């Protein structure tokens, strides 16, 4: 499509201008942009905290910041990254943008609730940052009692309120997605023609709905205990701190599946497109997503093996934690089988997806080590844990997020990003990531505890490696920030389907019109139909091919 033709065409970005048209929008695509900008902001706050942590850890002595400050830094890093970046990232940005388009709908089921979700997210986030500015909180993102509920002298209540409000944002998003997938599918879009991206977001939404309220009540009880001195978790009154941990981890374990499932959805889409092949074992992958969501609710006690939980409960949780690895493994095998004899091209999204498969596998495998009671006794609360979850959250989820942003960037903006720079960034991120976090497996195994701002001198070399890796990783993250913004103005104009991918979202112009499709599509083909016919890449403006 020529630039002039695109200039004349109305789409969701140019249909109205002005701050009010953005702040009061109910268009799911605009709301996705609101989220994209705000989660990027919170990501950099969390990243700033991480930078200070890694700088402190260059030397064995605690010499950059005081211990209390260090505690506040890792708390802020965890809170920002978990609640205000990872949990919303793919669902609120890519899920919001794509789910209606992928199912052939004009919007989500509840567009105004969608906007409310964003405002709740912003309110919670700004309140939490306010708490940080006011002095911060030093309990760790896990808020264990009775430190958080009685003894800490930091801004627990403010922070907890921010997270609580943010929880409602999650709940409403999940509610919106589930109802949308049930009720808004275009004619012919049966459940088993849905893209796997949609399946994984459906599974994620189940967790949003069932899990989030429990952490909400857990945090509310901490706040109430602090304000009113209730004594629910106070051992002096007969309270049990482990009760808090049960309530907290009942959500926070499924939360890690909230953080990874959407990424798996992205990977399915990208692997299929850049192998020019349908996903191997589609229904297995779809059911595995549901399986992860369900089984994920049965394993939370593996975070509490050494906290005082009964040893028998520990054994049950250990066994169940092994089981939850199975659906994840099924997905990894199926992606690999998709690659086999595929026509592979290594564009940036594919680099991220391949990186995801490798790094998620390492992270997941180390999860099995940790699920083994006897091993966890030794490495719990060490850097082994830190490395484990960063492999999944950063090596997995963040890379999938970046891969998805790149893959759908042409659709969202009508522009192509510069492929050379994108590949460079992907490789830089991959290398920087591994240099940052692989040494941490060794450190943890050797016994370096987490959440300490000073450490024995023999750990210094590995810590320096880790910090060096972190600086490379930071550079890697800055690159997309720069070239993606650059591409908005100077990037090559993208057509409707620059990747020649399957999926309804590629059958409408880039950027799409506000109502997504000129006419409601009618779906007749199976998903990932790469074998049968080459999807068309260019259409005359205003003409939508029936899929």
């Amino acid at each position: 499509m020529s630039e002039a033709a695109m200039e004349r065409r109305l789409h969701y970005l140019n249909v109205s201008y002005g701050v009010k048209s953005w702040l009061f929008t109910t268009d799911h695509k605009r709301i996705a942009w609101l989220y994209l900008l705000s989660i990027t902001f919170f990501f950099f706050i969390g990243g700033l905290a991480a930078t200070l942590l890694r700088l402190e850890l260059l030397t064995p002595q605690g010499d950059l910041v005081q211990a209390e400050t260090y505690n506040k830094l890792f708390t802020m890093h965890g809170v920002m990254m978990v609640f205000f970046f990872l949990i919303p990232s793919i669902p609120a940005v890519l899920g919001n943008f794509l789910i209606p388009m992928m199912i052939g709908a004009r919007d989500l089921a509840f567009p105004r609730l969608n906007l409310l979700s964003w405002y709740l997210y912003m309110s919670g986030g700004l309140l939490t940052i306010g708490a940080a500015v006011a002095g911060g909180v030093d309990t760790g993102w896990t808020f264990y009692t009775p430190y958080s509920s009685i003894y800490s002298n930091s801004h627990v209540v403010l922070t907890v309120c921010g997270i609580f409000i943010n929880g409602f944002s999650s709940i409403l998003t999940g509610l919106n997605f589930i109802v949308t997938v049930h009720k808004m599918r275009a004619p012919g879009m049966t459940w088993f023609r849905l893209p796997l991206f949609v399946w994984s977001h459906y599974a994620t939404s189940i967790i949003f709905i069932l899990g989030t309220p429990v952490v909400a009540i857990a945090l509310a009880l901490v706040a109430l205990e602090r304000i009113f001195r209730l004594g629910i978790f106070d051992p002096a009154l007969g309270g049990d701190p482990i009760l808090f941990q049960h309530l907290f981890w009942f959500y926070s374990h499924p939360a890690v599946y909230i953080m990874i499932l959407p990424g798996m959805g992205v990977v399915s889409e990208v692997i299929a497109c850049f192998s020019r092949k349908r996903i191997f074992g589609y229904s297995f992958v779809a059911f595995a997503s549901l399986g992860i969501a369900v089984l994920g609710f049965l394993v939370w006690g593996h975070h509490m093996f050494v906290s005082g939980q009964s040893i028998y409960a520990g054994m049950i949780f250990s066994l169940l934690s092994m089981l939850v690895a199975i659906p994840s493994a099924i997905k990894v095998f199926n992606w690999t089988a998709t690659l086999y004899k595929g026509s592979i091209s290594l564009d940036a999204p594919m680099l991220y997806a391949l990186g995801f498969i490798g790094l998620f596998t390492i992270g997941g495998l180390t999860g099995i080590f940790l699920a083994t009671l006897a091993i966890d006794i030794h490495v719990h609360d060490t850097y082994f844990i830190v490395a484990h979850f960063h492999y999944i959250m950063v090596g997995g989820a963040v890379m999938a997020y970046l891969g998805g942003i790149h893959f759908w960037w042409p659709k969202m903006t009508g522009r192509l990003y510069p492929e050379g720079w994108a590949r460079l960034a992907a490789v830089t991120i991959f290398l920087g990531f591994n240099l940052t976090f692989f040494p941490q497996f060794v450190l943890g195994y050797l016994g370096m505890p987490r959440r300490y701002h000073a450490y024995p001198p023999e750990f210094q070399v590995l810590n320096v490696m880790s910090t060096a890796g972190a600086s490379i990783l930071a550079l890697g993250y800055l690159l997309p920030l720069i070239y993606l913004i650059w591409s908005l103005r100077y990037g090559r104009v993208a057509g409707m389907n620059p990747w020649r991918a399957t999926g309804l979202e590629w059958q409408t112009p880039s950027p799409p019109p506000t109502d997504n499709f000129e006419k409601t599509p009618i779906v007749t083909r199976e998903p990932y139909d790469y074998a049968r016919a080459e999807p068309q890449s260019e259409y005359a403006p205003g003409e939508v091919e029936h899929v």
Partner: protein
Amino acid sequence: MSKSHPRLLHHFDDPEQQLEASQSGMWLFLVTEIMFFGGMFIGYTVYREAYFEVFAHASNHLSVWLGGINTAVLICSSLSMAMAVHSAHQGQRRKIVFYLLLTMVLGTAFLGIKFTEYYHKYGENLIPGLDFAFKEGNAGQAAIFYSFYFGMTGLHALHMIIGLGLLSFLAVQAARGRFSPLYSTPVEMTGLYWHFVDIVWIFLFPLLYLVGRH
């Protein structure tokens, strides 16, 4: 309702789809409320199992009369709410307003009785953190009982207050003739919410008030 019905939102294809989406959405929201209250219920259960004796003594300070009357009041309000929804489906404007107002009166009565109970507890020094004093057993464990009592009934009362707000909004709309057999979704959704709040109390009453009464 025809496709040009003013209440049909543009992203829906027909009114049935819109109504079913709203119903599904509200049921999902109530599921989140089940888990929200559920977190407090499991906490209460853990401590009740551990400290049953003290919990029984502590519970006996609550008034079965007031709690029982409140239960009956809420059950009446559920009936009036069901009648309000029914009237909305029938398009009987005056009955909708009447039943909504009746539900509000009963809900307010519930809150009045509840806060009277709270006031009594204040007088008896049974509010944790406010000169709490308990003679019949371990004071710490009794404080835990009362923490859950105030926490759970307080959260329930907060939901009632929100419900009253929704009902007053609805009553105004109903008086303006907004609801008809073709469109009564807000009344129906509020009805679901109100019944849920009633169900929470149905569990709270025996668990908090009727511990070890024999």
